[in-house]
């Protein structure tokens, strides 16, 4: 076989690959909200504003670690303008490290202060709640009311959660240290770890798997996010969502967080995008989408059956503290759970 045809084909392929060097976009967005939901919104923004947006997404398996690592690595030569995170803790950590621009969007004025960075470096919206998904064929939801049910011996082999080393589960466990105190939180996570070694509590690779296992009847209940619960419900699984610890620490709400990167190459466009995303209409759209994100503004309409923050006890958490302690808690949980 002669080399010439191969060289011709190769030149063609590399030329096509070079099309990655296309015209510079007007805005670059890194988005860890699922592509299925974010992409149509971004395309609508492009249509309405005439700005060309290049969006890059994360995948569930990377649980934001991928995008956040990229942002940090790129900080010396920022490429991204806006970081749209579907969980807040890593964004807070970026703010703590001075990697975010301060911007007070006019669209955010009705967003409660608890969901906004005091310094204006990030704004929360469209939240998910950490709930216990319960299979009604295997357990009476009225008997599952607290996080401590997960480690109750009577549910041995029937309780499940995601491994708390990344994602919202990590953030959740980290939050418990703030609200319960070191000793109580340590007791909880240690019990979970011990039970996971025997299989009394199962640890999955993510919240979607928790929802699937409970929905399929392989497990009775477990920790997951409201968006994963919504998917299970849509599938027709006999599940309900329990917002636990109404008499205790309450249910953790984790908002999406949008932020502009310091040194963003297209600052004006970034602000326009943030203003557009933070509008109540977008929160409403996300509420009615399959991902069922909970509006943080009470005034935003939501589907029937979606609870508002007034209808369950919201965990009183300072997201700033949560983000600041995330790395420390991650290291601690890693040492505990990876054995």
């Amino acid at each position, binding site marked *: 076989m002669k080399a010439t045809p191969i060289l011709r084909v190769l030149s063609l*392929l590399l030329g096509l690959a070079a099309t990655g060097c296309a015209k510079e976009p007007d805005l670059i967005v890194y988005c860890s909200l699922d592509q299925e939901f974010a992409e149509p919104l971004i395309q609508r923004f492009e249509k309405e504003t005439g700005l060309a947006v290049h969006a890059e997404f994360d995948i569930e398996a990377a649980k934001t670690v991928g995008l956040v*690592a990229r942002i940090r*690595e790129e900080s010396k030569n920022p490429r991204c303008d806006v970081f749209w995170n579907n969980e807040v803790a890593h964004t807070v950590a970026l703010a703590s490290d001075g990697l975010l621009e301060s911007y007070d969007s006019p669209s955010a004025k009705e967003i409660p202060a608890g969901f906004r960075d005091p310094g204006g470096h990030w704004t929360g919206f469209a939240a998910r709640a950490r709930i216990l998904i319960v299979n009604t064929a295997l357990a009476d939801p009225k008997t599952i009311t607290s996080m401590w049910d997960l480690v109750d011996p009577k549910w041995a082999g029937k309780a499940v959660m995601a491994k708390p080393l990344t994602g919202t589960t990590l953030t959740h466990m980290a939050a418990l240290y703030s609200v319960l105190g070191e000793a109580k939180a340590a007791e909880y996570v240690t019990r979970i770890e011990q039970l996971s*070694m025997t*299989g009394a509590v199962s640890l*999955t690779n993510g919240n979607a*798997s928790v929802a699937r296992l409970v929905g399929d009847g392989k497990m009775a209940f477990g920790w997951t996010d409201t968006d994963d619960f919504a998917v299970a419900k849509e599938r027709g699984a006999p599940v309900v969502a329990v917002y636990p610890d109404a008499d205790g620490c309450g249910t953790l709400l984790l908002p999406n967080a949008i932020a502009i990167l310091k040194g963003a190459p297209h600052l004006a466009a970034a602000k326009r995008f943030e203003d557009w995303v933070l509008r109540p209409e977008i929160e409403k759209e996300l509420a009615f989408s399959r991902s069922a994100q909970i509006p943080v503004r009470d005034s935003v309409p939501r589907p029937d059956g979606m609870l508002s923050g007034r209808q369950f006890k919201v965990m009183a958490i300072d997201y700033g503290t949560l983000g600041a302690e995330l*790395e420390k808690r991650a290291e601690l949980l890693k040492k505990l759970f*990876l054995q």
Partner: protein
Amino acid sequence: MSRPLVLASVALLALAGLAPIVWMLMRLESGDVSGIFDARTLTLLGRTSWIGAGAAGIAFVLGLPFGFLVARTDIPGARTLRHAGLVPMLVPPVLLSMTWSVVFTELRGPTAIILVLGISTFPLVAVFSARAFERIDARREEAALLVGGLRSVLAMELPLVLPAAASAACLAFVLAINDFAVPDYMTSIGSKVNVYADEVFASWQSVHSPGKAVAAALPLLVLTLVVLLPALALRRRGSLATWDGDFRRPGALALGSWRWPLFALAFALVAFAAALPIGRLVWEAGGGARGWNFAGFQAAFARAIEVGRADLQRSLLYASSAALISLVPGLVLGHALQRSRASAWLEPLVLAPLAVPAILFGIGYIALWNHPATTTMYSSGFLVVLLFLGRFACFPIFAGAGATATFDPHLEEAARLAHAGPARRLVSIVRPALQSSLFGGAALVFIFGMRELDAAILVPAANGTAMFRVYNAIHFGRDDFVAALALLIVFFILLPGILWSAFGRERWEVAA
């Protein structure tokens, strides 16, 4: 050997595969390394080693005989089985896990992990072994046949094939020890099994101690090199030249009364390892548990093509570009590995990009390329091609080395005496003899490029690849769409091989 060509190929390998690693290693501080070995991490490493060894063992035990059967015997449908046998490698291991855990509901725990990882990598051993068997001259085989039939043929040929098969098993080990998705999934119910790759991934949360995350990856790299040593030792046991200027291609060996039982075994392996996951994907694409229907199946495919077409095109473009470019280092460095005294240090360097965790490799790319001077390159598809090339070039390089081992050096010497320079000898004398092995290695670059995810998610342009789209969709339970897109990916990976088999011609001289 052509020194300029070797230097150029080493430079390419260094740029694409080693520079990102070195860049990351420069972040290490003395305190980082001392902290990585404690009882906990050693336990994880030990467990990971067992899992890796088990997976490599299964890959070897299944792959070597399978490669022999489909490449060299008269079992029915050998060609079809040969293609179908690639499928387990084309489907991401975690999707394989999902399939088997549904069909075999009690399949869990360390045994299940080893089984899944072993079966997903046995095609590697099969490909390498098949090539090695095909490079044994017919007359040498017939000489053994006359001595003692098929038994003597196998006894004579196995030592010749073992180095290639062992190299492939080593690669299977590397892939297994770097996988954390399969152990995670297969122990989602019951007792949790953690592996060292979990430690590496979780360490990237230590954003203020970047050196720690890099240090966490070092044990896997060391483990890989330790395992590589026996494979290297096997390769260097003297000349195994079976391919000389008068090569006679061996024909199909008649299995006699063993033909149908062995066919049944090969078929069962393919059914279990390939047909089952494909069947499951077909079932999911058509509606799955909600009830299978053809209209739903069509709709899923229509949506997969509509939504994923551009991603699929990009995946094909990047993977095939990387595969084609890899032919050059495959030939040059593969030849050099076998002929040169430098192979002792060159071989670990060739393997290093595959041996390091994907996240370290990917972040190394960001660190290396995200500068004002290289911004355009950083955002372009070139970087994805370079990443695939850097990470997977070891396949064609090892394939080239294995093929060179069986190539009679006298043929090169004859050309040298005829005043042909080193580059010309390499291209005109060596290349024709190596090209089927090189194409096999390049095919692996293509396959792994198509299914690459972990390093790719960190590189901008790789965001628009098909596998990225699949994993994105998995979360929100678009099972039919995920299944349809996964099937499309499998089909497009298999297509070149099918076309080659149907229309490509082997150019072996056959003496009358």
